[in-house]
């Protein structure tokens, strides 16, 4: 075997998907591969895709658990359109992941699992490894279970079933060989994780080495790929999912206000993880309240805000619908709350574990009466941190409910996050009056700040400022119930003006690329990664296309209209049927907006947007 000499090929990026049964440890394998790649300095983006069933039957298509990693020497913004490499631990994994694989891609299969029974469970009439259906792919048939058992045969303290549990590390070791990864990170992880189970630690280590050696000593694996370090900004990094980033953002905002964080909510996929994370942060004075329903979730949030907490509720589309009436109460009471909507496939119950951007119009307009509410959207998993803080800042500044849009793709997906210096995150100033603001010692709960138009946030317990607020029409300043026509008109004008004025304070819209041109791509939310990558690719080929990614949807950035004026045509890719376009047309109606829409429950691929850009540029 000493005559084998590997050939090295340098590549910019690789997308690899680990797929197996729910019990095969594919999430762990994928995470280990991501961590090692991250430690090696690659940029990474991951997409875990597990079954929605809690425990789907083993060996079936429903039970396939996948983890896709995009690792690269350049900055990557998505987990990759299509995997180039598929590691399939059983026939069901092969069958479910094969349609995504790039033509001519590499498949590594565990041939030991291709038994008659498993083939039948996956719905194969004949063995795809033998019937020629994988022609055109580079297939590596590895009797992984057998080889792993052989490698572990000297370990006495484990049953063969327990030994088989290490076979994911065999697969990991093999991929580490192919992609020239070091084993240190995983070895260290194994040692720590199984410190109290030396036999398991030994088995996993041996499996990892065995996989690596198998690659080293097999002719078919003598082409090794090298992915150099990405030029990431210096700093300390960690992986983070959107939901965890949201939770961290909220607790950070509360700390920066010097307030307790109240999170009143009702469990709903895919937003529940925010509740799970926050409920472990109690030492930050985080008060989580699992309410009896969505309405109680937001109702308690309004009560908490009245009491002076930073008050937040979280949900997904159907829950947002239930919170509608109370959101409007918060708007009338002019109390700051943040509503987080981790969007999922709709309408109705829809596709809870799949992603969509179709709550935009609900967030904007899904309330009775004239009820403008600030709406902002996160663009990536890590960005949920900043967006959550921003939502809180806006809420307390303008004394208004704010809706933050995330989605299932951001919430569950992960990417590297450059850990900020907590001390450098600016404090969020909140004032609670202690003195009356009217004549004769009267307190006027709706007397507005001349600049922000926010009303004073006087909290119960403050002597002399006792006041009543409610959902009925109001007299300006006093807030007393009033059905006077002029009072109602004035209050509605003021609330609208208050939200509109935020645009003066919020940052201007930035343009990626030239400020003028033939084509501008406008996106919002989680389509950022695919859209920005597509525009980058097109621009690298010298094409005249620019990109605007909108974070502030209500109010729109003050310079957005001017930017749009500088382009002939505007392409808007959205994971809905054109909701941002509705808003853009309403405000900037004279432009030519071209829709690119998709509601398949899956995120856009870079290729889809890239091809659309090319076809539009070819027309003009």
């Amino acid at each position: 075997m000493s005559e084998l000499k590997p050939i090295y090929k340098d590549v910019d990026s690789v997308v690899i998907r680990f797929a197996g049964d729910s019990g095969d440890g594919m999430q762990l394998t994928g995470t280990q591969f991501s961590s090692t790649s991250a430690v090696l300095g690659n940029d990474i983006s991951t997409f875990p895709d597990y079954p929605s069933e809690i425990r789907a039957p083993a060996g079936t298509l429903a039970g396939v658990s996948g983890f896709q990693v995009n690792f690269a020497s350049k900055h990557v913004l998505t987990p990759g359109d299509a995997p180039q490499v598929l590691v399939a631990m059983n026939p069901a994994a092969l069958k479910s992941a094969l349609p995504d694989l790039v033509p001519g891609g590499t498949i590594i299969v565990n041939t030991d699992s291709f038994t008659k029974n498993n083939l039948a469970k996956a719905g194969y009439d004949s063995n795809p490894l033998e019937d020629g259906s994988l022609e055109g792919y580079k297939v590596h048939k590895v009797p992984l279970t057998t080889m792993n058992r052989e490698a572990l045969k000297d370990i006495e303290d484990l049953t063969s079933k327990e030994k088989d549990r290490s076979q994911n590390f065999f697969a990991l070791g093999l991929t580490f060989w192919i992609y020239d990864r070091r084993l240190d990170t995983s070895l260290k992880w194994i040692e720590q994780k199984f410190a109290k189970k030396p036999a398991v630690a030994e088995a996993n280590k041996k499996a990892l080495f065995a996989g690596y050696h198998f690659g080293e000593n097999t002719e078919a694996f003598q082409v090794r790929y090298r992915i150099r370090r990405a030029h990431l900004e210096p700093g300390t990094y960690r992986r983070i999912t959107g939901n965890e980033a949201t939770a961290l953002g909220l607790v950070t905002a509360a700390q920066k206000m010097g307030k307790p964080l109240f999170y009143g909510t009702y469990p709903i996929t895919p937003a529940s993880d925010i509740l799970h994370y926050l409920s472990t942060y109690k030492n930050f004075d985080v008060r989580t309240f699992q309410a009896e329903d969505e309405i109680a979730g937001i109702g308690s949030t309004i009560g908490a805000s009245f009491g002076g907490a930073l008050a937040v509720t979280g949900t997904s589309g159907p829950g947002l619908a239930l919170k509608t009436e109370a959101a409007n109460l918060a708007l009338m009471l002019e109390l700051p709350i943040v509503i987080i909507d981790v969007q999922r496939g709709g309408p109705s119950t829809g596709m809870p574990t799949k992603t969509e951007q179709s709550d935009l119009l609900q967030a904007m307009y899904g309330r009775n009466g004239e009820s403008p509410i600030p709406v902002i959207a996160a663009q990536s998993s890590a960005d949920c941190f900043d967006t959550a803080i921003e939502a809180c800042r806006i809420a307390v500044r303008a004394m208004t409910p704010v809706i933050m849009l995330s989605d299932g793709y951001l919430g569950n997906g992960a990417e590297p996050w450059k850990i900020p210096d907590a001390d450098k995150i600016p404090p969020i100033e909140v004032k609670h009056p202690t003195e009356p603001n009217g004549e004769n010692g009267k307190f006027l709960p709706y007397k507005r700040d001349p600049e922000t138009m926010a009303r004073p946030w006087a909290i119960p317990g403050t002597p002399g400022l006792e006041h009543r607020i409610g959902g009925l029409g109001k007299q300006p300043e006093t807030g007393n119930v009033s059905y006077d026509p002029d009072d109602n008109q004035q209050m509605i004008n003021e609330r609208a003006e208050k939200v509109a004025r935020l645009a003066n304070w919020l940052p201007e819209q930035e343009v990626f690329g030239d400020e003028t041109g033939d084509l501008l791509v406008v996106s919002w939310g989680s389509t950022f990664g695919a859209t920005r990558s597509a525009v980058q690719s097109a621009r690298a080929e010298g094409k005249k296309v620019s990109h605007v990614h909108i974070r502030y949807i209500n109010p729109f950035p003050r310079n957005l209209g001017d930017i749009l004026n500088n382009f002939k045509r505007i392409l808007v890719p959205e994971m809905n049927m054109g909701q941002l376009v509705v808003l853009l047309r309403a405000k900037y109606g004279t432009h030519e907006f071209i829709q690119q829409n998709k509601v398949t429950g899956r995120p856009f691929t870079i290729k889809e947007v890239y091809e659309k850009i090319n076809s539009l540029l070819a027309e003009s």
Partner: protein
Amino acid sequence: MTEVTLNLTRKDFVSDQMVRWCPGCGDYAILAQMQRVLPELGIPKEDIVFISGIGCSSRFPYYMDTYGIHSIHGRAPTLASGLKLTNPNLQVWVITGDGDGLSIGGNHLIHTLRRNIDLKIILFNNRIYGLTKGQYSPTSLPGTKTKSSPMGSIDPAFNPTAVAVGVGATFIARTAATDVKHMAEMFRRAAHHKGTSFVEVYQNCLIFNDGAWDYATNPKTKHENIIYLEDHKPLIFGKNKDKGIRLNGIHPEVVSLDEVDESELMVHYEDMPDGSLSYFLSQMRHERGMPEPMGVFRCVDEPVYEEEVLQQIDLAIEQKGKGDLQQLFYQADTWVVEDESSGQNGSNGQGGNGSVPTLGVDEEYVGVVFNDEASSEPYFSPTDTLSTLNPRQPLIASQDISLGEAIQKLHNLDVGLLALVDDNGKLAGVFTEGDVLRKVAGNVTDLDATPVKDFMTTNVTALKEDDTLAQAIHLMSIHKFRHILLVDDDNRPVGVLSSRRVAHYIQDNFAEN
């Protein structure tokens, strides 16, 4: 609640808003009594909040010069809950009606009562929808003719006090708006109760349902139709106090004190831990020919929700320290990317020598540092080692003893598991009381002639003292082990853990919290 002199009077609680209920509405009396009672409580008025939903009754907060929210239909308990969790120092009153609280807001009402948040809920029951102009409500009796039920309503009626009993409310009372002194006393009692107080007030709607409570409020007839509850006193009523309630089987019945001695009557206990007595009382309805109880049905002390919320926060701070954001951000695997100008060109790979990479410093790693996950300890950790559970000494015997001796040992020392060892003191097997039942009983004729070896379990799943609690729980829950033997590195038995010990450990470490 310490009484302090604040010199507050009724007037301090009257707001500048004109009261807009219909003339003659029962709500006026409720408002007046509330304004009369509050100054007595010794609570600064800035610490009092009224929260209501929608309906005639829900205008109430506008008329009180305290903090207040007139919220949306049925949701007042949710706002009140969030407020109380944010600032437990406030006294928070919820004003609701039969439509607001029992129909559109029924879900919130029952869950709020269940949690026992320290809120004072006053339910104005007029058995009609007033604000929407006269439809039947969830407390309207079947057959009620209204605009929406011209042929009579067919919905069975809600029984508010029975609902409260059913969900375990800790304070339940009933009064009538016409009975102002009694009503004031109920408000006082509700104010002093720690936990959710629920007071049903019979309130007359002059316009849409006049006379609905006539039987219970008309001075001429009410004494025959209602019964005032007094703690520790027998249930006696009637204008001449000549009737009482006796339990007949499981049914309360009305008896005449001319015929029945007082000692046979039911006695009222507000603090009866279970809800059975309150339920009896709630079932005494006028339409069933029974006098309706007025007063405190139930008043018991149970843990108060918001106090437990805050206790968990205090405990978390005690255990983990006050939250540190930077530390929280680092609660994950982290890596460092150094400035590229520091000389690291980022070359990847170990070259072509094909050797397995070794641990240690390598130029590839100079720019990258791997940090450990920062720990965040739960209250008791499944990774606690078994030694922290103070396992008992195991009962050990030679594997060569007879079955009879083994059983004798188990019996004499009243233990469940006998560890059997070989000549070197190493574990050979275990014999448990379960084995006696399953394997021995009925199968062996001569206990003393049979070696225990033949009946012991040899393939023993033992743990070590530095194994984790999680492993023990796993074995106990998955394999139904009642005892787990602990061995040292030489496979010598050193301890035994019972499932009860594990359960106690977990319980103790929760109980301290």
